């Protein structure tokens, strides 16, 4: 009887241990995955292919639905086309813990979203370490930009890039998009005559502004990892930094 109890306890202990070490995290796209990685999640499974220009449109397959249903955690933002289908198909018995985050690449929002994931996963210390590196990166970037205040005081920014621009201390004279520019926005841009336009790579709308007499410099920042081999949030920020440096130098 004692030996049976011992064996039972051993089996329970092993299975519990396996459970802890094999917590599977699924993310809807490269962007939500990059937040999860920063929060300390290992081996995050990403649903939307990284080479998609606009990953929120990705439609989940039945096979992927099964993977999601068996996962422990799903990190999502809420704007993904697949979320409706996932919510519908998950039964009441599903053990999946859904972690909704806000995906904006501003320093503050990255902190909030990453810590929200870390609290659920129990990886706060890893997340804090990663966020410290992120803060150092932003500090350095801001320092670099302090040499270009003249150009950066005349900037217009795409709606979906206003967050990271704000974290860098850029105060845009106008926020445009995400819809194509209206007559009013065209008139506003003509009045402002910006020196720099920060457009969004994933749905660029600033092309008409480039026909001004004094052609402004333009950068197209990314949000989702995937462009030019970017895989992490730090890659994304580094890519955007390089893009900006090219027009500032």
């Amino acid at each position, binding site marked *: 009887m004692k030996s049976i109890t011992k064996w039972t306890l051993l089996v329970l202990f092993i299975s519990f241990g396996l459970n802890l070490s094999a917590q599977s995290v699924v993310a809807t796209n490269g962007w939500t995955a990059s937040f999860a990685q920063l929060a300390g999640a290992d081996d995050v499974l990403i649903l939307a292919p990284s080479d998609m220009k606009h990953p929120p*449109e990705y439609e989940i397959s039945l096979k992927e639905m099964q993977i999601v249903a068996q996962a422990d955690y799903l990190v999502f933002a809420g704007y993904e086309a697949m979320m409706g289908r996932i919510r519908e198909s998950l039964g009441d018995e599903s053990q999946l813990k859904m972690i909704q985050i806000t995906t904006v690449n501003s320093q503050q929002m990255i902190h909030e979203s990453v810590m929200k994931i870390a609290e659920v996963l129990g990886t706060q210390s890893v997340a804090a370490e990663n966020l410290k590196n992120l803060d150092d990166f932003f500090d350095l970037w801001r320092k670099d930009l302090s040499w270009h205040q003249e150009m950066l005081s005349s900037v217009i920014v795409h709606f979906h890039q206003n967050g990271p621009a704000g974290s860098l201390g850029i105060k845009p004279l106008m926020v445009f998009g995400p819809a194509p520019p209206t007559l009013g926005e*065209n*008139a506003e841009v003509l009045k402002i005559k910006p020196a720099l336009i920060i457009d969004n790579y994933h749905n660029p709308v600033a092309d008409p502004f480039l026909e*001004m007499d004094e052609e402004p410099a333009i950068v197209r920042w990314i949000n989702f990892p995937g462009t030019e081999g970017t895989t992490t949030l730090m890659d994304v920020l580094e890519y955007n930094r390089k893009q900006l440096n090219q027009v500032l130098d």
Partner: protein
Amino acid sequence: MIELLSFPPVFRGFVSLLAAGLCFPLSGIFILRLNLLNLRFMLMHGVMLAGAIALSASLDPLLCALGINLFLVLLITSMSRRSDIPTGGLTTFFMVISVGVAMALIYKNQIPVQDTMNLLWGSIFALSQRDLFLLLFFCLVILLFVLFKYRQISAVLIDPETARTAGVNETLIFYLIMIFTGITIAFAMRLVGALLLDALVLLPAMTAVSFSRSLKSMFITASLSGFLYSLGGFLLALKVDLPVSSGVILVAGVCFGITYIVRLIYEKHN
């Protein structure tokens, strides 16, 4: 205002909108008189298919749309004239086929749906210089067609059978009408999108049909209405900062509503 109009994208959008407002309602008259409303739906789906092809093969979306619509109208006209199959059935068939092929292309080539959906909205300030010239050339051609072939056109619109017996080359005129309708829809979708193209094409024509006693005054009223709706829509969009296509549909909708009420009152008193 002057500075804004001298801004190339705005200038191109403004000129193309006024030209379209003046000339596209002529096709609207063709659509209403020959009951081609189903065909118009099919042509809109044709533009969707063209968009999917253009995005898949990195081709020019406008030229693709013009090509696909020309192919579809010629095919349908030819098929409906050589068989007893009603045009409505044919247009429905091709409409479904167009969407089916478009969806398959979008899925297989992983085309961003967002890019395809842009076709539904149009983009008046995204017209290139070449697009503008093509549009102005087409407007000139359709205007000259109506001016110089007015008698034959009116004969075909009133009664094709009688037109044929009176020596009018009804087949040629009918084919040309279909071709112009196809090209009009392709251009209108590029300008204001699928959801609002009726503001440019049909509403001015419907206004004209309400008020005109002859086909001649119908064409003139449709053109003038279209021009005024476009100009009014543009000014409204400028005044209250709206997308131009929304401005046009608001002005067109309100004007059509007023004319409809006026007509109702007039009929009641007579």
